[in-house]
């Protein structure tokens, strides 16, 4: 009985394998693939990037000319699943890639991109290990983590925002530790005094009384928070509870805190952050994007959505410039796009920065924007 069942299961397995991996190619449409967390704890970043990219694809397809087909596969913020998802996208016939939304999965997919010579432009995987693994084929449209950390330290020092800085970071997160390390190095260089460094991890991200108390005891007048907004919201609440009122300085992961469900935006009053995108910016591009996003999905886009949107447009402009054809293979398009992006005459202006240029390693050069939360809205600091 069991043996028969085993054979039956094996046969079923072989059939599924044989049936997979078939796909058709449309001759005037570029196939763009991305992996991102569409389920699980980091899902909102993947979904936001997907939605932003989808809006850009729809806009471009409506224009005529170059056509895009976007497919996003779920990687649940896990490197192993991301590699599987990426392979599934290659089976589907992906010609251009948006890499992965988050850093560790993107490191895994960048390696495949390098091996297959597929051009990849990640919206938000900000670790430097991503571009390193990509061997010149993996580009970033977001700041790299070290850039953010040192830019934050320089900003705090130059503006004279604080004399004693406390840092709370997430020690099992590549993004958070990456920024923390570069901030610490730069702070030491600049003579910025760091009086307290405390950390938390996935299992301890619900109570911050110890970390906040340590910062208070050390007499910190500014807390640097290289993290995403959910833990940050709890830190604000904890400080408010014990009546401790330091300045707060966040990074781009803080973006989204104002739209977080059940969060009292008064707690975030006065929080400063370096972010490349603000949904309430007054330029026409941002306004039109935010309006479309709200109409379609009923919420204000976070930075990841803008990153996804910019990625598609950057690829669109580069494709126009290098005369790539949809009938080319992924590797042929990859070589063309790679040369176009790194050429000195190519620069891209989008929602998350203007005059962006890329170096041969795939890292972007753009200026960070300082923002402050005032009356429940982002206001430019400069």
């Amino acid at each position, binding site marked *: 009985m069991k043996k028969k069942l*085993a054979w039956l299961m094996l046969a079923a*397995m072989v059939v*599924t*394998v044989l049936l997979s991996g078939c796909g058709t190619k449309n001759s005037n449409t570029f196939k763009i693939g991305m992996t991102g967390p569409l389920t699980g704890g980091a899902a909102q970043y993947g979904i936001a990037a997907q939605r932003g990219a989808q809006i850009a694809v729809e806009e471009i397809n409506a224009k005529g000319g170059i056509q895009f087909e976007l497919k996003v596969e779920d990687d649940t913020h896990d490197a*192993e699943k991301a590699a599987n998802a990426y392979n599934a996208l290659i089976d589907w016939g992906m010609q251009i890639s948006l890499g992965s939304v988050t850093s560790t999965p993107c490191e895994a997919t960048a390696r495949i991109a390098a091996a297959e010579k597929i051009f990849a432009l990640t919206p938000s995987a900000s670790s430097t290990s991503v571009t390193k693994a990509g061997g010149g084929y993996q580009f970033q449209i977001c700041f790299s983590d070290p850039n953010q950390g040192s830019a934050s330290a320089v900003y705090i020092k130059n503006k004279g925002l604080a004399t004693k800085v406390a840092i709370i970071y997430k*020690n*099992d997160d590549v993004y958070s530790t990456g920024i923390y390390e570069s901030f610490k190095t730069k702070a030491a260089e600049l003579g910025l005094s760091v009086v307290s460094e405390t950390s938390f991890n996935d299992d301890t991200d619900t109570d911050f009384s110890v970390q906040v108390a340590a910062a208070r005891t050390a007499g910190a007048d500014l807390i640097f928070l290289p993290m995403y907004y959910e833990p940050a919201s709890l830190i604000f609440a904890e400080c408010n509870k014990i009546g401790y009122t330091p300045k707060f300085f966040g990074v781009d992961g803080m973006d989204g805190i104002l739209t977080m469900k059940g969060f009292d935006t008064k707690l975030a009053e006065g929080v400063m952050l370096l972010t490349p995108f603000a949904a309430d910016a007054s330029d026409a591009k941002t306004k039109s994007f935010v309006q479309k996003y709200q109409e379609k999905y009923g919420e204000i886009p976070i930075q990841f959505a803008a990153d996804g949107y910019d990625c598609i447009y950057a690829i669109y402009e580069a494709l126009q410039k290098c005369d790539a054809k949809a009938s080319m293979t992924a590797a042929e398009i990859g070589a063309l796009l790679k040369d176009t992006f790194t050429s000195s005459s190519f620069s891209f202006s989008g929602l998350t920065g203007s005059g962006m240029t890329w170096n041969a390693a795939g890292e972007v050069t753009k200026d960070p924007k300082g923002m402050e939360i005032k009356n429940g809205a982002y206001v430019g600091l400069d």
Partner: protein
Amino acid sequence: MKKNTFTTIWKSNFTTYGIVLLFFAVMMILMATGNLSRLMRGQLVPICAYAIMAASLNLTVGVLGELSLGHAGFVSIGCFGGGLAAALLHDAGAGELVCLAGAVLAGVLLSTLAGFLIGLPVLRLNGDYLAIVTLACCQIIKSLLTNLFVGRDESGLHTGFLTQPEGVAADAFVIRGSQGLRNAAVIDNFPAAVVLLILCLIIIYNLIDSKSGRAIMALRDNKIAARSIGINITSYKMMAFVVSAAMAGAAGALFGLSQATVLPGKFDFNMSVLILVFVVLGGLGNIRGSVIAAALLTILPEKLRFLADYRMIIYAVVLIVVMLMRNSTVFHGLGEKIQGLLRRKKTAGSPPRDPDTDPAGKEG
């Protein structure tokens, strides 16, 4: 055990090896003819690794009869230890197979040691308590690895705990705390993985069919009776637990090297439960079932990608349905009917033979 004769055991074991070899042959043919999808190609080595994890956990859960929720801990020790060994061998200019063999060896040694140390206090416990403590051990291993830094450069190895060792370049790290293991070279060798899987199966089957194996099963079925006939409970428990841990280490090294990067957080409670699901679905004590279940449940979520958002719901539903089917008399009756029909077709004269000769013969 229904018919514990040499031939039936031999046949049953070789059916399992045969299934693995058939899978290998089919995959190699598909690969050679270019019909294997990229997705499937990338999953081959992880499938072998998961199969080893499931088979080895079955030794503890099915054969020894103790519920362990910390198997992922041993896998992660093998993964990180093996990754480090492979990086050092790679630096020394060793080839792919030497790196892999060295990694597996290092993984086995380290997880054997860990299995022994953890086994000493843990195996004094039974049932729920043992499950809780192994779960805690898995969390401890994860926390330790999250804070461990190991780098290597011209001046040798640099290690740090909680903080990074000073003056080591970012590229020099093999294990970098929360950023996990970064492999010097990704080794994705399917034939070698199949060899390792078969080796592990041989070890497990031979242990089960040996005098020690029968002692282990005896103390699973009745501890007091086993003790009364002079079976040393502690040493046999330890034997099963340590062998299980050692093979988990081998699987970890194999898995780790097939990935570009592995985070310590990957080997958490969920991973332990996933391996346990393979074991339960395949049948407690049924090694072949574990291997097949591991392979199917690794492929299934990826094959369900076309369902997009409903993927994980359908996956869970499939799990529930299969579990129910395993225990339903209707399904079993149906299976026997089909079998009867097949047999009648083949030879009317030959006596019906029960192929269900799993050594442990213990099923949910």
